[in-house]
């Protein structure tokens, strides 16, 4: 129910934007897209917020990176992750004026990165692993969108930073 409410709120705000063009896109509720129709809300300074559906995300996010996730629930072995690099998302939306990026999940978990971390490393909004789409939350998966970022060094834990069920990206 809460999920549906947030979804409706997003859509309502989106419609208002198209109509008036002036209304500031502010979300009080956490974005919780429906499992079978996931989307990403991207917010950036000076813009009203953009909703990107999974089809479009997959279209623009086809980079494949080998990454090791270490931590509880991970096997610590290299896998091929496919998705959209955060720096490419910024480029795609023409977001240039930001100092940090916060990646937020449908369950309110979140991770913040400096601009440098985003531009200097392969920080990926992953949608696939080893050629298969990431399963959604209701199917027991970590997707359809999951943040995947490299270990700081071989042997260091990074899984707890890899936010599951990503629904929002905020450039600040």
């Amino acid at each position: 129910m809460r999920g549906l409410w947030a979804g409706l709120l997003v859509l309502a705000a989106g419609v208002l934007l198209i109509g008036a063009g002036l209304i500031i896109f502010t979300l009080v509720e956490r974005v919780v897209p429906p499992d079978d129709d996931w989307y990403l809300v991207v917010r950036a300074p000076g813009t009203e917020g953009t909703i990107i559906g999974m089809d479009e995300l997959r279209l623009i996010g086809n980079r494949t990176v080998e990454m090791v996730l270490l931590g509880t629930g991970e096997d610590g072995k290299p896998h091929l992750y496919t998705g959209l690099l955060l720096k490419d998302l910024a480029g795609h939306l023409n977001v240039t004026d930001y100092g940090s990026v916060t990646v937020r999940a449908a369950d309110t978990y979140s991770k913040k990165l400096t601009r440098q971390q985003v531009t200097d490393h392969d920080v990926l909004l992953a949608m696939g692993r080893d050629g298969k789409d990431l399963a959604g939350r209701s199917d027991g998966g970590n997707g359809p969108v999951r943040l995947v970022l490299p270990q700081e060094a071989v042997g260091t834990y990074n899984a707890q930073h890899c936010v599951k069920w990503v629904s929002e990206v905020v450039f600040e």
Partner: protein
Amino acid sequence: MDDGNPLIGIAAVGNGQAATLMSVAPTVLSSLNITSALTEPPMTRAMVRRVVVLELDGLGWGLFQQRAPLLRNVSSLGNLSSALTAFPPRTPTGTAMALTGHDMLHNGILSSNDRTLSQPTFLEIAEGTGLSTVWIEGDRSILSSETELNVDTNGDGSVDNEIFGSLIDRLDDGTDVVLAHFHSIDDEFHRTGSGSEGLALAMSRIDSYIGQVVEMLEASSTPSMLMLFSDHGLHDVSGGMGEHGSFRHEDMYAITAYRTFGTHAVEVLPSISIIWGGSVMEVMDLEELEAMPYLEESYAIRSSHGEVTSLFRGVMVHDLIELKAGSLQFTSLTFSAGDGFSLSLPWEWAEEGAGTIIAYRQDGAPLAGGEGPFRLVVPQELAGEYNGQYCLKDVTKVEVVA
């Protein structure tokens, strides 16, 4: 009392004064006069308008005692206690216990892999009553809950100073309940062990932050509480590093401390605590007592000053005890007064029909200062009997002895 929690038993055996981290949430909430269903007794009944909670990740009770000189501002808070954390002693498990006031069997966080709380945090409960709250973190959430994140903006290798900056901003803007989680003690202990200079530096830096928070709260006109806790401790492992997650005292004993500021400005509601098994089971204030069934009768009280008869209205002690402890048989009851004087009576004196009451009205008016607001009134068994010595004035506590 939660009988399902194995840690309570351990606390009783392991350390006489040790509580568990579960007392953090009820202390925060009760100090803000927020009623909750939490059963752990609060550490204090002080009333404040603002609470600042600092979580010092990895500051075990043992490490604190070893390195107390580095933590002078922590030590001088007073009200320091060791507190058992959850098992496994990890950040999410310990944090969840402190923030929800529930043990791990009931709060949903059984391991560091769990994120989703099945109980609200004290921040969420406080927010539900209209207070403003914030949870200030480092660069990621610890649990699935609204958090304000910080990154190492100035590139000095630690997020602590950025977290401190956010904390100061929130003290300035008057946020009612602030939780800030500092990580560097845990980080440094992991990296370089308990004897390292890095750890010593992290501890002194955090201690200086605490000193600055204390100064701000001292200067503020808002009655406040500063509460401090750690989520777990760590132990040394080979290679000069540290780890936690084991069932050992270094990891399991965390710390709690608190201090209140300017509480004199707040009206503290008079109340009676009902104590059983060494824990406060219930705190009842006048309003709650007045809502209970009462007895109003004429009582004669005879002391060395003579005999006075008046109309007392009050709650039957029997009803008060049965409310929380059930209709069990106890051996005795100990009543304590505000000045520390106490008196034990056999349970039979309080049984149904005995007429022993906690009076809150005398001849239609609230009890006079010094005698009330609550007075134990024990009827005479025979006319003319001396019963004044049993009619304890200014009762604040009733302890049930099984």
